[in-house]
């Protein structure tokens, strides 16, 4: 009996302990209306014992384990104030009344991930990558691993130059994108997208992989809905006197019209040429007559021109795009750029002259002035089935160069001028019908250099060279391509004809010569392409062969002689593109092409390239073959911000003409002799970059190595020579804390040349560092230094330190800055280089210490 009672007590106790309790009730508002969707939970010491939601009738029911302690019933709703009611853990009815909530939920936007990869599009969230001192888009883009921007503003990704630059999907500027990268504030940009395997033509998107990579800048909402831009004024003083700059840009994106208007005028640094350069179709007109202008422009050292050049630059640019419909766009690109620059340097030139070396020492003061107006109009229809692009371009170059020279205390003045104009119209039509594509392309270009002059006076001599050239080129291409499952067959037929007129006169000492030629140069090529793609589209192989012929007919207008040549062409091309994994890509290409000269090969008149150098063609057409093979490998882990790129290229060039140089005391003669010669080249390059987001650190290391072998006739003797170069470069930038930012970059390079058992090499190394301090958020104090060590000759090294320091203060939309340039007041920079068997040593005069104050206002 006792056992039964104990068992009963035990059962009752355990039942009591495991018993469920029910807390239920209704939730109403202050007017007695039932509230649905109230989240009701029973909490005890931060733990949720049970929960539920009220139904339409406002009722709830919580069923939980019974217990001795107290708990809290929490009533929570999106539009009513939270209510907490303490309770014991026993069954009860609990009706509550909630009051309307006055506050809403906090709105939140999480910072976007730094990098996203979707298919072939890699997006970088720029605000997470840009450093505080990055003002322009170009400054911030340099922080992105895998992207490189050179000193002129040219952008490349994983070693490949970008093929298109878009702003919010619109190609406004074409190749003039430096205007945007240096004119758009980094704060206006949300994302930088890299579009690999890019097809700018919509109907080509299924025609296979391309090697093209494009960039698209995505602006933030503010930049899209209202005009943006900046204006700037600078004033200062330096060793050359007053320095100043004034400029501004106004940009409007969004809607159907995009416009970029910018202009600048200043003499503190060069900017006109780099900011108006078109990287996709050059503004520089290279007419054949430009050779008659000689080389009066002087040489440039591997140093920021800001240190040695005294410029005066100005430009105005207007670029506009109008979207007529989803597929149709009109575009205008126009600019006028004026650039003037002068500097001073001296040289020591050692020319190999057989048993001895002829040495010349000279002092130069070159100056160059150029006017480059350009206008382009585009009409583009780009739909899924059709493409039509009508493009007109007109560009002119008016360039005047002067060089005051001192040679052994004897003065000499050289000057040259080039007047050139180019008009070009091209029509590109494409159509997709089912699996077939049809192409028609017509280009007409007129390039005229009616006046090209070179003159010099000094050393008891005078010389005058005058020349002209006109060229009319017509190119016609028709093609059809058919796509099957894995194959594409493309059958293009291309015909090009050039009509040339060139002429020159030379009056120098006892040389008086005159030449005038007229020529027709044509080529007809049939270039079938067979493309195969693997089923997974990871492997693509292209086989192409150029079949046809080239013909040339040149008439000497003075003698009446006619030279005619017809040459067959059979040039194979092979390329393989393999996306081995989502992270790795290989590209292999091999080609062999026949290289043929032009009308200039028949100009037998001597041409002066400088007061001491004359070149004369033997009147033989250059004919050769260039073969090359290259292999590139890209690897990336974009989410982890690792990027690696490498490529190796081997080439061989064979030609029927060997370069020949004869060096005399006062004159250097250059010509070509009819002897076959071949030259080889091998280059390797690689770079690895990584970004550590936690400390905003970017690391990059690169290597470039190359060797070449060539042969030249010097002083009547055939000499083989070899050149080699090796260069390491590195970069590290970091912003580990809010108040400091550091960067360090440098390179070490060795360039060598060997011939006839002699070997010489020069070593150069540069170390550059920037330290930025932010004592308060709006204030930046920075110091930038360059240390350069160059080998001039044998055991002679020269060290040089350059530096600049500055203060920047940002207040609202205005930035005030004070800059001291060339803090150490270094006045000269020296280095040496090889050209063939000759050695040249340079010493440049640098601008002294300068101080500049500027105000920039951003819209």
């Amino acid at each position, binding site marked *: 009996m006792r056992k039964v009672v104990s068992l009963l007590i035990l059962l009752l106790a355990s039942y009591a302990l495991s018993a469920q309790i029910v807390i239920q009730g209704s939730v109403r508002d202050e007017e007695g209306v039932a509230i649905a969707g109230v989240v009701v939970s029973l909490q005890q010491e931060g733990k949720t014992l049970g929960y539920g939601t009220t139904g339409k009738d406002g009722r709830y029911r919580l069923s939980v384990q019974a217990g001795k302690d107290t708990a809290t019933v929490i009533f929570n709703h999106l539009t009513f104030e939270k209510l907490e009611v303490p309770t014991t853990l026993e069954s009860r009815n609990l009706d509550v009344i909630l009051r309307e909530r006055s506050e809403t939920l906090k709105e939140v*936007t999480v910072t976007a991930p730094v990098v996203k990869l979707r298919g072939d599009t890699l997006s970088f969230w720029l605000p997470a990558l840009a450093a505080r001192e990055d003002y322009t888009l170009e400054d911030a883009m340099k922080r992105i691993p895998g992207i490189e921007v050179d000193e002129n503003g040219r952008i490349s990704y994983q070693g490949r130059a970008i093929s298109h630059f878009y702003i919010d999907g619109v190609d406004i500027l074409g190749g003039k994108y430096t205007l945007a990268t240096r004119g758009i504030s980094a704060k206006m940009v949300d994302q930088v997208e890299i579009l690999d395997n890019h097809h700018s033509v919509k109907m080509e998107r299924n025609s296979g992989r391309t090697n093209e990579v494009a960039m698209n800048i995505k602006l933030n909402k503010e930049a899209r809905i209202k005009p943006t831009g900046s204006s700037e004024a600078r004033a200062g003083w330096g060793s050359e006197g007053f320095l100043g700059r004034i400029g501004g840009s106004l940009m409007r994106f969004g809607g159907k019209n995009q416009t970029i208007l910018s202009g600048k005028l200043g003499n503190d640094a060069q900017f006109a040429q780099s900011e108006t350069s078109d990287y996709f179709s050059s503004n520089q007109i290279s007419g054949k007559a430009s050779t008659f202008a000689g080389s009066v422009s002087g040489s440039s050292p591997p140093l920021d021109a800001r240190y040695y050049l005294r410029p005066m630059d100005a430009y105005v640019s207007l670029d506009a795009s109008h979207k007529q419909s989803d597929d149709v766009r009109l575009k205008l690109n126009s600019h006028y750029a004026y650039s003037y620059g002068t500097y001073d340097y001296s040289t020591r030139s050692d020319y190999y002259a057989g048993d001895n070396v002829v040495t010349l020492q000279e002092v130069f003061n070159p100056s160059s002035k150029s006017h480059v107006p350009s206008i382009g109009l585009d009409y583009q229809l780009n739909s899924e089935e059709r493409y039509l692009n009508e493009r007109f371009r007109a560009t002119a170059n008016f360039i005047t160069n002067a060089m005051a020279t001192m040679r052994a205390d004897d003065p000499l003045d050289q000057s040259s001028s080039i007047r050139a104009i180019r008009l070009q119209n091209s029509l590109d039509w494409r159509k997709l019908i089912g699996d077939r594509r049809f192409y028609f392309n017509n280009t007409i270009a007129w390039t005229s250099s009616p006046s090209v002059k070179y003159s010099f006076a000094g050393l008891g001599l005078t010389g005058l060279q005058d020349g002209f050239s006109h060229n009319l080129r017509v190119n016609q291409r028709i093609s059809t391509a058919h796509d099957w499952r894995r194959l594409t067959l493309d059958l293009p037929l291309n015909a090009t004809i050039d009509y040339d007129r060139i002429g020159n006169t030379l009056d120098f000492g006892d040389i008086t010569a005159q030449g005038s030629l007229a020529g027709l140069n044509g080529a007809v090529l049939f270039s079938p392409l067979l493309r195969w793609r693997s089923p997974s589209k990871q492997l693509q192989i292209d086989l192409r062969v150029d079949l046809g012929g080239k013909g040339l007919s040149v008439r000497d207008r003075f003698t009446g002689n006619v030279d005619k040549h017809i040459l067959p062409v059979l040039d194979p091309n092979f390329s393989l593109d393999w996306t081995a994994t*989502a992270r790795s890509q290989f590209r292999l290409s091999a080609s062999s092409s026949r290289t043929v000269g032009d009308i200039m090969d028949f100009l037998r008149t001597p041409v002066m390239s400088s007061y001491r150098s004359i070149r004369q063609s033997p009147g033989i057409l250059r004919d050769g073959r260039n073969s090359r093979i290259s292999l590139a490998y890209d690897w990336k882990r974009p989410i982890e911000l690792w990027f690696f790129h490498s490529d190796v290229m081997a080439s061989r060039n064979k030609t029927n003409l060997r370069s020949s140089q004869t060096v005399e005391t006062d004159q250097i003669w250059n010509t070509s002799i009819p002897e076959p010669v071949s030259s080889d080249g091998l280059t390797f390059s690689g770079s690895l970059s990584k970004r550590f987001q936690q400390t905003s650190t970017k690391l990059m290391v690169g290597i470039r190595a190359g060797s070449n072998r060539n042969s030249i006739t010097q002083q009547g003797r055939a000499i083989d020579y070899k050149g080699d170069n090796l260069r390491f470069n590195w970069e590290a930038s970091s912003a580990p804390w809010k108040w400091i930012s550091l960067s360090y970059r440098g390179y070490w390079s060795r360039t060598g040349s060997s011939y006839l058992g002699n070997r010489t090499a020069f070593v150069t190394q540069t170390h550059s560092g920037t330290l930025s301090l932010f004592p308060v958020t709006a204030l930046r104090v920075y110091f930038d230094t360059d240390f350069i060590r160059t080998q001039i000759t044998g055991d002679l090294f020269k060290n040089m330190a350059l530096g600049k320091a500055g203060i920047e203060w940002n207040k609202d939309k205005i930035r005030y800055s004070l800059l001291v340039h060339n803090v150490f007041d270094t006045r000269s920079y020296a280095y040496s280089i090889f050209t063939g068997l000759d050695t040249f040593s340079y010493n440049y005069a640098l601008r002294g210490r300068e101080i500049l104050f500027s105000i920039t206002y951003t819209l």
Partner: protein
Amino acid sequence: MVRKLLVTAFFALSLSASFTVYAQNPVGASAKPIQREKAKVAGYDRIGDALYEVIYEYRVRTTVSGKMSTRSEGSTITVRSGQPEIPEGQDNTVSDTYSTILQFGTERARFLDYLAYKVDSLACAGAPEDTIAKAYNDIDRSAFYFDPVIFQNWPEGSMTVDDVLVPGTFTYSENMTHEWTFGDDQKEVCGYPCQEAKTSYGGREWTVWFAPSIPSNVGPWKLGGLPGLILEAQDAEGIHHFTATALRKAACPIVRVQDAGRDKTQRDRFIQRKKASGGNSLNNIPTESITSIAVFKNDNGGTIKVNGRVTVRMTNHTWIPLELE
């Protein structure tokens, strides 16, 4: 209360005005790019009010597969399997990212792709017809698009799912019951302190993070039933991951596109059929069910619109289902 009535009346008027110019999925469209015509419009059914919206980034960790996407030749749809899947040991992992959005109010919620939401919100705002047509074209051309539309707590206590199985659209209901186990871990997601919870659903083990300070029992996709809004969810294998990236006030109500061709079905049958078809590819499609094909190209491949109603995304990334059972 008065303010609510005015807001409701405003939206009702806006919707009634804009739905007359809103078109969706006209049946039997030609192979040309879709033109939105006034005569072929579809309406909306109003499901409920939305107070807030949460944008979720949905990432799927998958692989580059050897299976080729399909191609049509005339009236024949042929599926070609290319080389087998890339052998193990090779690094072919990719991450596909989708933008999705959850609208929720005091009673109901809707989860769908952001591009689809954009079309609805343009219609809601009375945007011009060509703007809405362009938004539709963005859907047709998008390489990454989350097909299902999930209505949570509609009807009450249940979920309604509208989904696509080429060449048709389907709908089914299921109960909103998940058995949750609370964890001890806490972390901040989207600026809100969150608590951990776990459940099993659809053959996967899910770990979620919910915010008790946001009193809503809904979440991304089909996940819900917690005493707070779910802001992050991930399956145990790390394949499917939903993360809230923004929370903001709602811009338009919860609506459902009217679709007369939408077939009613059962959840289990639909899941099994979708798994068998390998996602939304054209595998095993009876060719006689195809009346039209329109092809759109994009930088990531292309899309095919079948019968003017459903879109197949061409990709060589392996489709990995959210639900295994």
